[in-house]
């Protein structure tokens, strides 16, 4: 059941991105920025957390989920460490993904070459 929920909710979030891409002049980069920022805002106003509880990976894997982790980390940081926590919490919570993206991204970029366009 959790797989079906992840599939449907994850799919719907991607469809929202696709509709934005097809009906506006936004580039994928703009959409990623908008999605991360909306993830932060939706978490701040308490809408995204229930979605994470309901769909798990369906809500955490798409980029708004990255925003969710950042926002949750920042507010939890504030609870633990006050003002400093607002600065450290977000990156702490997402450190794994960011560090992974840097190291794997670097290695793959160095060892592979762009495929010729067909």
């Amino acid at each position: 059941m959790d797989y079906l929920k992840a599939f449907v909710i994850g799919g719907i979030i991607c469809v929202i991105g696709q509709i934005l891409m097809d009906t506006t002049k936004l580039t994928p980069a703009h959409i990623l920025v908008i999605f991360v920022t909306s993830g932060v805002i939706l978490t701040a106003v308490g809408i995204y957390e229930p979605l994470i509880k309901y769909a798990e990976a369906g809500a955490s894997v798409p980029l708004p989920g990255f925003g969710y982790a950042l926002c949750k980390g920042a507010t939890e940081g504030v609870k633990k460490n006050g003002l400093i926590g607002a600065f450290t919490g977000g990156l702490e919570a997402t450190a794994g993904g960011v560090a992974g993206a840097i190291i794997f991204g670097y290695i793959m970029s160095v060892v592979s070459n762009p495929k010729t366009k067909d």
Partner: protein
Amino acid sequence: MDRLNKKEYEKYAEKKIPKPTYFKNIFWAFIVGGLICTIGQLIRNWLFSRGLNEKQVAAGTSIMLVFMGSFLTGIGVYDRLGKVAGAGSTVPITGFANSIVSPAMEHKREGYVFGVAAKMFTIAGPVLVYGVGSSILVGIIYLLFGGGR
């Protein structure tokens, strides 16, 4: 040929731009995006079954998905997938990894500092700037409204 004014030209150009195939795009974005999230759920459940806690599972899942995204981009599969899936492949975190590897590979000729390392953040940079920036703002607002200790 008569000179077209700006409005007329825009109308003319509008007609010439191929209309995206909305339904097909939405369908594939849903399927591919959904499948990537299902894979994420699979990894999540597997890590939980190994006795990891919520924080470790969240980090582990992103690390593995980011690895998959970078690897598939490196071997040229992810960009081919992206042509069909559109947002279905850009919106999940694997697409974030793709946005790092794709331009970095492309610009390798410019060297390992200004080529690879700098171009890795063409898209990931803005995402981090706005994501981290807004999360800090939320944290500060939360503190001002008495959410601290």
